[in-house]
């Protein structure tokens, strides 16, 4: 029942937000997202750390197609639900200094998006998963296309058509599997059962169908061409939603559907996926090093990070999956922090070009501290949130294949290069015409960055808060995969 509330609350709040005018929309959306966060925290605190699905409800929805409205939370879902409920308040808070046109619609769309995301992460029925997967696309499309910058129309259109194209293949795969179930049901666990009767060839096709859908969403090399442009053109809140939460729909989909449904397909083709992921890590990092635009740099870093998560997931061992889950949470927090800092710099200097920036530290002690903490988290320094995930992921890839592990390990070095370059070029050095008299953070900005910086450290010191919760569910999933 709680899960249902978690999905419905943002929808209702969004509808009410639509009816408000001006400043009220912001506040209302923030309050709603905080209530949602409290709900998320309550669920986390009462969650029993075993492999069962909790807080679930099931309704018959579309009997003729065997589709049920079945939602519930297990250890894996919980991490993603936490991620969503945690980040949305920050995302909303980060827009407090901005005045958007038609603000009520803007905030309503963010809330609708949140509902769809929670839906994706809690769906227990494959078609329901698909609906939410697609439904999440519509609000983010409009957020990016209406409130984005100059080139937005073309770029977001490509993003929309590209991702929708991918998920159509997933739909085909789901319909195929659904028709194979003896009772014509699309419950995800029933699909796990069905897959046992499928041969390698069949599973390979299904693997391809699922893989295209999720690889475009994450995105993996070479399906990433929509990503940097969209991240740059979208308004920062949209970019945060995209990179912080939405790309996790792809990685979550791989964990929840792809791995357990087509284990033989993964056995046959998982290697390709790992290689593509690793190419993405190196390729994304190298391009990130050369970027001049801060937002684009972070976009490519995000592309590199998700490559590592995906490599760990396709290595399909306990460390890989656990590492990916922790990293999803950590990456979400860090990337929201980073994009927010870029937004702050852009608001004050009207520029994101590294060449034109520099010397900001001289007037901004608060911003500098937060920026460096979040940057270190992103570089995966020990005792920050990035470290645990990255360590586990690299370990798992190394176990999967030593050479691949070694190449993937480049992420540590390359990551440090581009992140340090980002901070150095923008914050240190001589002051430029644009950064002259840069004002330090105001209250609402501190209110956003302080909790993020704290989370970077807390999750780095106590990663078990997440690992322990997800472990039983992950182990059970692995037993299905490797049965």
């Amino acid at each position, binding site marked *: 029942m709680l899960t249902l509330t978690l999905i419905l609350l943002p929808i209702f709040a969004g509808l009410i937000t639509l009816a408000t005018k001006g400043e009220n929309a912001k506040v209302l959306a923030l309050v709603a997202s905080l209530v949602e966060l409290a709900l998320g925290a309550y669920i986390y605190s009462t969650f029993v750390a075993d492999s069962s699905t909790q807080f679930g409800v099931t309704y018959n929805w579309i009997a003729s197609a065997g589709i049920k409205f079945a939602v519930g939370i297990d250890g894996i879902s919980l991490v993603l639900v936490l991620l969503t409920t945690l980040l949305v308040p920050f995302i909303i808070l980060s827009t407090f200094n901005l005045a958007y046109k038609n603000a009520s619609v803007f905030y309503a769309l963010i809330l609708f998006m949140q509902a769809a995301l929670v839906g994706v992460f809690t769906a227990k029925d494959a078609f329901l998963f698909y609906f939410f997967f697609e439904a999440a696309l519509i609000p983010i499309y409009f957020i990016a296309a209406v409130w984005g910058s100059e080139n937005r*129309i073309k770029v977001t259109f490509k993003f929309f058509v590209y991702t929708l194209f991918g998920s159509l293949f997933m*739909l085909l795969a789901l319909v195929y599997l659904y028709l194979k179930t003896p009772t014509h049901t699309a419950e995800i666990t029933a699909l796990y059962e069905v897959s046992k009767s499928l041969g390698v060839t069949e599973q390979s096709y299904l693997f391809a169908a699922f893989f295209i859908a999720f690889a475009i969403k994450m995105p993996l090399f070479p399906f990433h061409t929509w990503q940097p442009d969209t991240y740059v053109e979208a308004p920062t809140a949209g970019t945060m939603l995209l990179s912080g939460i939405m790309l996790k729909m792809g990685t979550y989909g791989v964990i929840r559907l792809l791995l357990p449904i087509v284990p033989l397909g993964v056995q046959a083709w998982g290697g390709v996926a790992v290689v593509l992921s690793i190419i993405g890590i190196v390729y994304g990092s190298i391009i990130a090093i050369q970027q001049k635009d801060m937002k684009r740099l972070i976009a490519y870093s995000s592309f590199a990070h998700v490559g590592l998560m995906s490599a760990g997931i396709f290595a399909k061992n306990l460390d890989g999956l656990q590492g990916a889950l922790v990293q999803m949470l950590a990456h979400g927090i860090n990337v929201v922090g980073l994009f927010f800092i870029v937004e702050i710099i852009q608001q004050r200097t009207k520029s994101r070009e590294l060449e034109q920036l520099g010397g900001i530290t001289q007037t901004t002690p608060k911003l500098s501290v937060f920026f460096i903490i979040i940057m270190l988290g992103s570089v995966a320094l020990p005792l920050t949130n990035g470290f645990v995930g990255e360590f586990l992921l690299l370990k798992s890839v190394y176990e999967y294949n030593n050479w691949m592990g070694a190449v993937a390990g480049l992420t540590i070095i390359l990551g440090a290069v581009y992140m340090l370059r980002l901070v150095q070029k923008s914050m240190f050095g001589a002051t430029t015409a644009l950064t002259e008299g840069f004002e330090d953070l105001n209250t609402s900005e501190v209110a956003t960055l302080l909790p993020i910086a704290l989370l970077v450290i807390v999750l780095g010191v106590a990663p078990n808060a997440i690992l322990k919760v997800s472990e039983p569910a992950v182990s059970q999933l692995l037993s299905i995969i490797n049965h």
Partner: protein
Amino acid sequence: MNAIIALSLFGISNLFLGFLNNRKILLPATLLFILIALGLNFLDWNHEYVWFSNMLKTNNLSVNFTTVILLSALLVVAISRGFGDDEEHSHPAEYYAIMLFSVVGAIMMVTYQSIIMLFVGIEILSVAMYVLTGSDKRNLRSNEAALKYFLMGSFATGIFLFGVALIYGTTGSFDLNGIALSLSHIKKQELGIYPAAPILFAGVILIFIGMLFKISAAPFHFWTPDVYEGAPSIFTAFMSTVVKTAGIAALYRLFSVSFLTMYSVWGNPLVYITCITLLIGNITAVYQQSFKRMLAYSSISHAGYLLITVLAKVPGTNSSLLFYSLAYAVATISAFGVLILVSEAQAKAGKPDESFDALNGLAAKNPFLAFVLAVSMLSLAGIPLTAGFFGKFFIFADAFSHTSSIFKGILTIAVLMSAVGVYYYFKPIIAAYLKKGDIEKIEISPIYKLTLILTTAITILLGLMPDLVKNIF
């Protein structure tokens, strides 16, 4: 069945109403007539009757299709607004009467038991449509469209009739079940050496071509874009919903009852035709600049999806077909409803325009119209939580449950083409919401607004609860 009789009488009385000097009465009268017909139609629910010496036969399927046809007609009439105030050049009484007559033809096409009645139905429907297409007498394009439609349509009807003659010659029957019975005596393996086989095959294929022309399947689609574009938008809306539904229902009835045993003869050509229709409809739509022409190609592409159900012929396809027709009809009427208002506003502003650019900036001052347009486009594109998604979903599921491996190929094309569809259906949405334009606030009459609310609501409702229609059997 009483609907046919009633509508014929109503059509005539509409002509007489035209003698009154009060034009305002025509619209409500026509709406009332269609509503009465809709009520009469439900009398046949759960009654399998044969009518007029075995000429027509009602069953639940035909009642359902009649409902879709009457509903589409009702909605189209509701957005006709009495055909303007142009006293001299518009003839509302005649238009409404002709529309009612054509609905009679459409209903005959879904309830026929004898192929002769199918022919009569097609003719009633088509002749009425030729006239309506050319009803904008002073518009060159309208005249051209009418002539084109008439010439091509007559040929198609001729081909169809020739096919009927050949079938009658080989089976000795016009009756759907009579033909099926006669064909069932021929064993499958003997089909090739059956003496009259060439004539039989030719007959089936000729009938087939005639029907495919009516639903504008490729390669018999060339008339569609020109006719759709040339005809007044209101009649284009009528054509792309009522005519399409009647055509596909007639095709389904004929081939699922009479020629089921001859699947091997028409199945293979239909596979290719379905694929070509999907490819041509969708890919050509991408290159259109005119919104109206894009809708014409979209109508071709939807014919392709509908043909998949005819091909799949598994249990349950009839409800998939029904669902898809309904979803397509309401979304199309929404789209035309918005197009009519916008193009009129543009014409008033002195720059008549039916391209995508005409929609630029629609959302700024007309959020309601933009929303209606967006929902209808999302539904036609098959995005989840709209009726169009489930339409496609049920069709894909039907095709998948078919064992023949050829369906995997068709499905792949269908899925790829759905993705292409997203591309062109988003153009109007982008124009309306994201581009800048100077459309002023458009006044909408209450009944028009109600219609658009209704079509949008049905689209969303069926997207959330498709079982309302899917489980009707």
